[in-house]
């Protein structure tokens, strides 16, 4: 299998992941905050094709949950078929999109990843949480890339004192243990804020901390690019500094920034997960992947409910996708830069 295959595979994986998360309202069967108080910590619902008499059904179905609890017994007599691409009839659990990828006829319920302590569907929360976490990762990565590109190009292009000050500053940021820095910064900010503000704060905090590495890389590229003959020639023809940067130098940086983005997004997704896991991210009932994992801090969850780990497992293909993409991009940019 060649590099191209990995690149395509990574891209496909990411497209799938992002597509599903982006259309959480369609793919999630329930509303993320809907509490099903009869079913706290319900196991992932089993999907059946064979009924009690061994007959095969093309349309998968679930059995109705009697008590809904973790030790849920299934009532074999009542099978509830899963309907794909069905519109929601407003029911107890609600749902904020009228069309859903799948849904189960009442009174059946389908919790693909089980439920949490308040009986909320983990699968729906995972999808809606992904919106917040991935968006945080993307926004923070864009922020730090813009900052990094700006600072790096100034340092590389103007050199001298600019270079010294900015690069020593970036070394300071690189040397700081970023996780602890995030804690410190987050702790200084007010606790009592709305979820939207909390989200922006997390993005800003992560983004502002992460600019140093891209800045140093950009500086290196700018430094070598500005000495190239065609740049010197353009300068000799009287091109302005802004023109040189825009027309000749920054295009060189583009490939590098793309690779960096593929590396930074998962890193910042993880940062958001970490912050939310420790209760410093987006507040309840809004889900984020860190929030979903936060309940694992409790011993009884850790010891009793294996399905609460599922959101962590689901992160693996996402990170793998980004890694494959970053590898492939790096190969490509090498060609461009050299």
């Amino acid at each position, binding site marked *: 299998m060649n590099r191209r295959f990995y690149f395509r595979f990574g891209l496909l994986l990411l497209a799938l992941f992002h597509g599903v998360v982006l259309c959480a309202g369609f793919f999630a069967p329930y509303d993320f*905050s809907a509490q099903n*108080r009869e079913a706290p910590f319900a196991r992932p619902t089993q999907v059946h094709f064979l009924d009690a008499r061994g007959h095969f059904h093309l349309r998968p179905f679930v059995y109705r949950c009697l008590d809904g609890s973790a030790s849920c017994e299934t009532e074999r007599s009542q099978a509830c078929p899963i309907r794909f691409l069905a519109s929601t009839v407003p029911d107890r659990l609600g749902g904020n999109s009228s069309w859903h990828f799948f849904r189960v006829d009442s009174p059946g319920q389908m919790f693909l990843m089980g439920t949490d302590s308040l009986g909320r569907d983990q699968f729906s929360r995972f999808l809606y949480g992904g919106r917040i976490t991935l968006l945080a990762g993307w926004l923070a990565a864009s922020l730090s890339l813009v900052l990094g590109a700006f600072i790096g190009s100034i340092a590389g292009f103007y050199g001298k004192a600019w270079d010294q000050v900015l690069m020593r500053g970036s070394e300071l940021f690189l040397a700081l243990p970023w996780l602890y820095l995030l804690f410190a910064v987050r702790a200084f900010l007010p606790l009592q804020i709305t979820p939207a503000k909390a989200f922006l704060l997390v993005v800003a905090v992560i983004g502002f901390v992460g600019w140093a590495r891209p800045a140093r890389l950009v500086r290196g590229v700018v430094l070598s690019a500005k000495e190239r003959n065609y740049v010197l020639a353009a300068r000799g023809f009287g091109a302005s500094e802004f023109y040189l940067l825009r027309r000749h130098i920054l295009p060189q940086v583009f490939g590098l920034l793309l690779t960096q983005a593929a590396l930074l997004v998962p890193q910042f997704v993880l940062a958001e997960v970490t912050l939310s896991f420790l209760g410093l991210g987006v507040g309840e*009932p809004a889900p984020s992947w860190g929030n979903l994992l936060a309940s694992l801090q409790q*011993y*009884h969850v850790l010891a009793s409910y294996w399905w609460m780990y599922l959101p962590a497992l689901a992160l693996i293909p996402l990170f793998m996708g980004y890694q494959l993409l970053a590898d492939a991009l790096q190969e490509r940019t090498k060609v461009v830069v050299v």
Partner: protein
Amino acid sequence: MLTRLALMRRGSLAGNYLRLLGIALAAAMFLPGLGQAGHDEFLRTTAEAGVPGGRLVISLRAEPKTLNPVLAMDEFSRDVIRCLNADLIHINRGSQGVEPALAKSWKISADGRHYTLQLRRGLRFSDGHPVSADDVLFSFQVYLDEKINSSQRDLLIIGGQPIHLEKLDANSVRFDLAQPYAAAERIFDSVMIVPRHLLQSAYGEGKFSQAWGLNAAPNELAGLGPFRLKEYVPGQRMILERNPYFWKEDRKGTRLPYLHELQFLFVPNQDAQVIRFQAGDTDVLDRISADNYEVLERDQKQRGLRLQDLGPGLEYNFLFFNLNNLSAKSLPSVSRKQAWFGDVRFRQAVSSAIDREGIARLVYKGRARPLWGPVTPGNRLWLNPAIPQLPRSLSRARELLKSAGFSWNSNGSLMDARGQAVEFTMIASSSNAERLKMAAIIQDDLKGLGISVQVVPLEYRALVDRVFKTFDYDACILRIASGDADPNSDMNVWVSNGSTHLWNLGQSHPSTPWEARIDALMAQQATTLKYQVRKRIYDEVQKIVAENLPIIFLASGNILVGAKEAIGNFQPAILDPYTIWNIDELYIRPSVQARKANGWTP
């Protein structure tokens, strides 16, 4: 601080009956022991006779702050101090009745204002120094000293005046109260007798508050409790050893305590405590959450553990709104919302919308009772069964809101009469998973009324600061753990100038007629000696509270405890300290397995 005095026993408050009870109890528990003990008047217990030896390990969530019983405020210091010290008359946590401790008997005057206590003969502190009435006088002098500022001082002020003590002879002391006190001799519980010979110089020099800190050497400390200090390793453990001079013996005449050593391990949080207990590192565990109880219960047999659900305790969780007078503070956003919070119909609507059964099921796994009033079902003696237990009803809540001038806009959001959307924040302690879960449930319940609630988890000290000092909050979820079944223990919650009158603190005079009525009733019950009359009065207090809902009661969790099966005489109670209240009677059954597990040495 919440008072933690006085428990009640059925019918024990009638003046004459009380006096008789005291003497009879003293006679029943003490006299049979006289024969064996010679001049020393040991208290003979009735529990199963155990086997001396062994070590018991208990985990504490935090280190004690001090070993000075007069200054101790936090529960962890008190847990240790209870093992090192003793009081004159003690409340038996199991029976909830009073029993003689250092005082072998007492008499109460007909007017209920004078108590004459007779000390046991032959009492010695854990350093061997004999005890006399002077030690009692000294102890009360310190407790009552305004400069020392003991948290228990308030309890010893009756009718606005401190209790007056008079030494009658070397072994008897008379206590004079300014007025009769309903909880009677229960007032003596947890007022520890401290050694004058060790503390007087520090007290004289004005250094009492530095005495008996954690850096005190074991030989600087002495008490009358079953154990004495052996070793303290900061951050790790505190080891107590058996007090050879302890004043109790079992029914076979063996001197208590049975245990040779008691070890407190400092374990940072409840999950860690549960893991250590499950692994067999600790022997006893209390205050287990319902979630962890379920985990422990699963393999208790294999691990040799015995878990017990003692049923509802005395603590209650509740939601309350900020009704403080904010005229002196600039908190316009809170003041604006007080127009809603102050309307009893709004509070009733909120109460009506809350799914208490859901809270009991989801937060406590069913190991809790929904609450509608201030007295929990665990407190059978004082519970008013007439308080209506209304099930959740959104339609009733909507009716109430409508009658209070609220309406709903096209999105279903609740709007007040001025057309502003009803939304508020609710603070809860970030370290308490149970209350955060309650907050999430209430948030969802109120969404059904069109009220938007934002839950703000705050670090506990920050939360206390907002509730008690800055008043910068809309609503708060909190828990009160009454140390006691007696109504007096919650006095400072209900009277309008009480230090824990959470919803409206620092009132110079009651701000509402019903608060004035509660003030009068609480004062009346505090000096009424007849149980039936007191009960009637307190029933009315409960009714007024349930009608006006300054506090919206949610649920009361069961008391869940556990111990190794090898521990004998384990009789947990619903009163704090739940498991080690009879530490002097606990013993380790000398089976081979238990010997191995506990390093038992005869």
